[in-house]
């Protein structure tokens, strides 16, 4: 057994500032196996793999390759140990051909001979059953072809250990099948493969063993054949923790926002939302759970008028008049002109919700500066609002004229949430509003959301922490790969149940 281990990690730790990304992780990879690394967002999967691939350097611990201790300081070092990683974001030169990209950065002996490179690339594609024209340019390729180039690039450099960081996230089910076929062929030829994923059915379909990480720690490594999906989910999300967030019963909820069959594609042509339907009600917090990138951002942006939809309907019901308004294909400005008071706390606070270089006062009027006929700005009201928010939300800042980028993350968020709530919304959408916030700031945000709910606002809360979602929300909509895998009652749902829904889609390969 011991001589059969291709790669072994012992006691690996890595921290960024005060955040422990990995804590004393042990892991081993047997030659000729496919090992799945499973974990939620932020569980440290990618960081761990980056240390094997030479992107990061561990703070503590040892890495053994073929039983000998290895020092991997750069991706180049990693290649010397025959380790290669396929990152989530491809690193290819668009205007080069596949073969040129594959040869890039190689220092072969003798003359640079493109024909020879193309021939050996063709040989590799043949051997592992890829479909690939070495002379095709990258910009003409589909996402899956680009991924193939990345894999070939690594095989061409002679890697025996391949690490794939969420390779299926960008692929269609058919493409996933093809990828898995290739991976199995590579396994047969003796390569060892690590695949990062959080889709359980893929783990079951492709891997020999599964290593589960949670909050930077290694929970267990088990044989895939001997474990069920439910057991894996429990390992992944852990036991429920009680947070004691106040949750009142919704007072006579009425339908406020009806979303039907939303479909949306990214610029690259990847389907981000498929047939998403739900209803948000007044006086209720609707949670949205899902692995990062399951379509949460697109969904909220579609409602806010920032995403182009290829299909579906968004209907808003005015609480006073009961009039229905169609919000689809309206710009944010048009939505406002309809009298729809829609507030949105986006995920990207300084890149979308606020302007980092402007002071708090100028950020206060981002939404309202158009008010009135005057050609000039009225800074008086925003200035008062800024002072109010600073006082009531305890924003720590030298003054209301401090650029918001100088504030700490929690204070930036208070400024943003404060502004959005000050607009007296009827619908409030918040994406990851407590990300990166300390406990006190987080609770302040929960309380603000709860207060809005009690005022009869329809609140939509996108979160990543299942414990929070389960204690805060009245209902939870679970997204998986752009589809709704279900809507559950926040008071009754089990953590494992939601975890399973997050990782499971129909159409298992």
């Amino acid at each position: 057994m011991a001589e059969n281990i291709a790669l072994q990690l012992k006691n690996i730790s890595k921290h960024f500032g005060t955040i422990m990304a990995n804590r004393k992780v042990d892991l081993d990879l047997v030659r000729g196996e496919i090992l799945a690394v499973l974990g939620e967002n932020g569980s440290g999967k990618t960081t761990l793999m980056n240390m094997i691939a030479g992107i990061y350097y561990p703070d503590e611990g040892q890495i053994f390759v073929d039983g000998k201790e290895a020092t991997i300081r750069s991706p180049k070092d990693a290649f010397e140990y025959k380790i290669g990683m396929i990152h989530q974001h491809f690193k290819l030169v668009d205007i080069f051909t596949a073969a040129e990209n594959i040869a890039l950065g190689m220092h072969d002996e003798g003359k640079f001979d493109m024909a020879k490179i193309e021939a050996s690339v063709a040989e590799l594609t043949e051997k592992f059953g890829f479909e690939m024209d070495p002379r095709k340019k990258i910009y003409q390729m589909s996402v899956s072809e680009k991924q193939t180039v990345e894999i070939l690039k690594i095989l061409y450099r002679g890697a025996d250990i391949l690490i794939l960081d969420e390779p299926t996230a960008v692929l269609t089910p058919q493409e996933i099948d093809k990828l898995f076929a290739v991976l199995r062929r590579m396994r047969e030829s003796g390569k060892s493969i690590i695949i990062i994923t959080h889709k359980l059915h893929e783990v079951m379909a492709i891997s020999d063993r599964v290593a589960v990480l949670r909050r930077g720690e290694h929970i267990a490594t088990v044989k895939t054949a001997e474990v069920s999906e439910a057991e894996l989910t429990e390992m992944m999300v852990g036991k429920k923790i009680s947070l004691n967030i106040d949750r009142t019963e919704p007072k006579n909820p009425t339908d406020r926002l009806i979303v039907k069959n939303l479909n949306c594609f990214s610029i690259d042509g990847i389907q981000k939302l498929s047939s998403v339907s739900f209803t948000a009600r007044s006086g209720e917090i609707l949670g949205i759970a899902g692995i990062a990138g399951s379509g949460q951002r697109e969904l909220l942006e579609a409602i806010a008028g920032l995403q182009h939809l290829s299909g579906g309907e968004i209907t808003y019901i005015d609480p006073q008049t009961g009039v229905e308004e169609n919000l689809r294909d309206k710009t944010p400005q048009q939505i406002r002109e309809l009298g729809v008071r829609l507030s949105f706390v986006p995920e990207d606070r300084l890149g979308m919700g606020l302007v980092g270089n402007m002071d708090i006062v100028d950020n206060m009027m981002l939404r309202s500066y158009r008010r009135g006929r005057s050609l000039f700005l009225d800074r008086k009201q925003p200035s008062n609002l800024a002072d109010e928010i600073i006082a009531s939300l305890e924003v720590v800042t030298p003054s209301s004229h401090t650029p918001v980028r100088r504030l700490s993350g929690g204070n930036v968020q208070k400024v943003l949430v404060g502004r959005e709530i000050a607009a007296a919304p009827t619908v409030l959408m918040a994406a990851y509003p407590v990300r990166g916030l300390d406990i006190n700031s987080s609770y302040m945000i929960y309380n603000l959301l709860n207060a809005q709910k009690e005022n009869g606002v329809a609140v939509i809360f996108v979160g990543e922490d299942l414990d929070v979602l389960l204690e805060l929300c009245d209902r939870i909509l679970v997204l998986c790969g752009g589809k709704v895998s279900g809507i559950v009652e926040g008071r009754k749902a089990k953590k494992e149940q939601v975890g399973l829904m997050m990782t499971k889609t129909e159409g298992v390969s």
Partner: protein
Amino acid sequence: MNEQVKKTRDPFVRITKRDGVTFGKACIVRAVCIAVALLLCAILTVLVTGQNPLVMFATVFKGAFGKGRGFVTLHEAALLLCVSLAVTPAFRMRFWNIGAEGQALIGGLATAVIMFLFHDRMSTFPLVLLMTVSAVVAGAIWGVLPAIFKAHWGTNETLFTLMMNYIAIRLVEWFLKIADKSGSNVVSHSLLGDGIPNLFGVQYLFNIVVVALLTVVLYIYLQYSKHGYEIAVVGESENTARYVGINVRKVIIRTMILSGAICGLAGLLIVGGASHSIDSNIIKGRGFTAIMVSWLGKFNPLYMILTTFLLVFLARGADEVSTICGLNSSFSDILTGIILFFIIGSEFFIHYQMHFNWSFFEREKNDEAGAFSAEKPAQTDEKEEA
């Protein structure tokens, strides 16, 4: 082996960003940089020419503000400031308009064409009005073309505006051929007439007054108007602009119309209010110097008054030095270059702090035995955190 690797060594110089430097401290940094620049200029002067550097600096000053020079310098500064004001709204929007040269030239051309055609057929007031309108419209068209392409098809505005300069130059050359059959490369005063009359009988006063007014108006526009606010938001983050419902395309196009129009106005002042003639180099690179003025002035019209004067002062002083001291004009360019280099360089020291690690060398000696110690594994991580 592993133990050794853990002793990652900090590099000798580490650069960190500093945030929130007080205005006073920033001024001190700038003053020190200018002092060092002057010192270097003085040393270079003594070494290369053997002249007394103090005499040289005095000459620079005389060149700019000496008898009868002050007003010309003021006018020179006004023209440069006008072009700089023109590019500022675009720059605030992070739209890199480097075509001010062409936009001003086309404004000048429009002025010249009107003067050429109508100077002896119309009375002064309607003529000036017609000149103004055509110059502003011509400049605006030159400015808005790249903006339309950028807004709708995402073309690169830097290349586009730059190339428009050459089209403007060729158009002027074409006009020269038509207007002046003698083959001269200038269409002179005699063919164009007087253009804009002197205000209160003072030459150039009209131009100076117009630019002074424009500075104030543009300052208010950028700082206090809703349009100015939209420009700032679009410049900072297009995503935020979309999020709050600003029509980004409209703002880009509107702002470039303004930028081009002010450039056209500059062309009017240069051709109609100063030279009363036109050639393809009438703007004299002000469109490019303006970029520096605007940038050094942090895109603030009031600060830009200072940076304009600094640049004009240096340029005129340097000219004087080369004539009086009998030096090659290139030498004065070198001195101007040194001073500008230090002024621009001072920004680096205002925003970044250097940390020196003196123990770097000590450890090197101790480490010689263990030559395999890690070189720079920690660096990638630092970047990631930042």
